[in-house]
């Protein structure tokens, strides 16, 4: 019995060390580097300065932050608003078709942002895709490319988020108790009213938490803004990568990432509190 205890403790310890070294230590290093001085020749110079954080409070980063938050909030709300009714509809299908949708959603969730971005780039380009189609059906006489633009970027973000939100909401939608809905429908309540009065309140907590998850996720998307957005649509993620790789200013990139980490942590905290309060 003692050896068994020792065995499980050993496995625990090794797993803990692996996760700590390769997940926690990098984050800690990032926080440390955010206080270093930038050095264009090397990666950084060891120091303890607040300069990198001070730079954040300049007008440029203020604009980028506001834009990132706005984009992520708008994207998250749109994704959830489109996904939720779709997931409810999927849960009404036969098991065979549900499996079809799950494979479709899992494929989309796993597919590279790069591929999805590229696909939309082609779909919205001038020579093929949507603009040409609109010209063909006579809606647009002089078609131009639809990307790069804010709208194109937003479509890309919503597309990325759709499969994730759908897969998070699906289990609950599939298992939900349908008796009240069905009773209301039998009594002649219009389906729209049933949706807003019965289904929506039952899902309120999960919808709030999935919206917050989406917000954090969209805050960190890199490929869509670079591929489908204009430089003036670029979010904080692009700027961080740009500072760290392009300008070789790791300390500034790290400081921006730490700020993003704090925002993420706050949102997750709110999410946990919101979920907790809703559950009696």
């Amino acid at each position: 019995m003692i050896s068994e205890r020792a065995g499980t403790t050993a496995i625990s310890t090794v797993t803990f060390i692996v996760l700590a070294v390769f997940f926690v230590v990098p984050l800690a290093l990032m926080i440390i580097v955010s206080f270093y001085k930038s050095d264009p020749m090397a990666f950084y110079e060891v120091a303890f300065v607040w300069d990198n954080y001070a730079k954040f409070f300049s007008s440029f980063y203020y604009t980028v932050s506001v834009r990132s938050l706005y984009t992520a909030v708008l994207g998250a709300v749109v994704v959830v608003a489109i996904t939720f009714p779709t997931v409810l509809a999927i849960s009404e299908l036969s098991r065979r078709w549900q499996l079809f949708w799950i494979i479709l959603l899992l494929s989309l969730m796993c597919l590279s942002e790069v591929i999805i971005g590229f696909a939309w780039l082609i779909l919205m380009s001038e020579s093929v895709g949507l603009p040409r189609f609109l010209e063909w059906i006579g809606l647009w006489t002089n078609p131009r490319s639809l990307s790069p633009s804010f709208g194109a970027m937003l479509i890309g973000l919503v597309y990325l988020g759709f499969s994730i939100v759908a897969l998070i909401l699906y289990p609950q939608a599939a298992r939900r108790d349908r008796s009240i809905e069905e009773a209301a429908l039998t009594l002649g309540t219009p389906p729209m009213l049933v949706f807003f009065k019965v289904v929506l309140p039952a899902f309120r907590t999960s919808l709030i938490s999935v919206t917050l998850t989406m917000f954090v996720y969209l805050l960190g998307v890199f490929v869509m803004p670079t591929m489908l957005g204009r430089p003036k649509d670029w979010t904080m993620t692009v700027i961080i990568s740009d500072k760290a790789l392009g300008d070789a200013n790791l300390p500034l990139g790290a400081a921006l990432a730490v700020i993003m980490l704090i925002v993420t942590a706050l949102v997750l905290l709110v999410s946990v509190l919101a979920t907790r309060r809703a559950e009696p």
Partner: protein
Amino acid sequence: MITRGQKTLLICVAILLVAPFVVVFGVSVGASKTISFPPDALSAQWYNTLFTEPDWLAAIGRSLLIAAIAALISVTIALAANYVLWRRQSGFSKLVFALGLGPFLLPPIILALGASIFWAEFGWYGRMEATIISHGVFFVTLPLVILARGFAALTEEVIEAAQMMGATQAQVFRTVILPLIAPYLITGFALVAIISVNEYLIANMISGFVVETLPIKIFNNVRYGYSPVVASASMLFVGITVTVLLVLARLTDLVSLLGASKES
């Protein structure tokens, strides 16, 4: 009971989800060097280039190698964390499990930047091993959660029966537990492998300038001059991803693995 409105919604959403790939497929089998859709003439030349040009082949090989080893690392960590938590509900094993949920909650840019600083300090910046380990650790959350379902489905009786017959801890693990959680292991492995094959940002920030994986190559191609080979490479991805998931659906019950059936 599905209403007509819901049917229309599903059809519209399905069309929007699939449309980009129909167009990419059209471009990938087109003969012209500039993008055109629908293609004027059919040709397999872009697939031919993809599978004969050493540059593209090397990128495909690297991506698959990284994915296979990273998935192995991920599933091993997830199995260890779950097994210990299942054997003994100690605070420490709960902490290890919670730590494994962490990477999923953070925006990838933070993980990527942290990892690139870490590997620079460690001296492995720009090496494939660094990308493999980071992928393996950062994608642990999915197999962790999936395996937790597998362990939750294990019944005490089976284990107790095996122990009463005199099986040792290791024997119970090998002959009873492992076969029962095998579907969950396979699912976790496959999901990490496809996510790793498709991942761009972390791979790029750790070693993208040396170790060019398929997504990195596609991204660079789109940014600095376009060629229809990118379309055929994208379709290869779609092919791999969908095939793996279809095989998975045959081997395991995906719908209930995701927690959708009332029993689980």
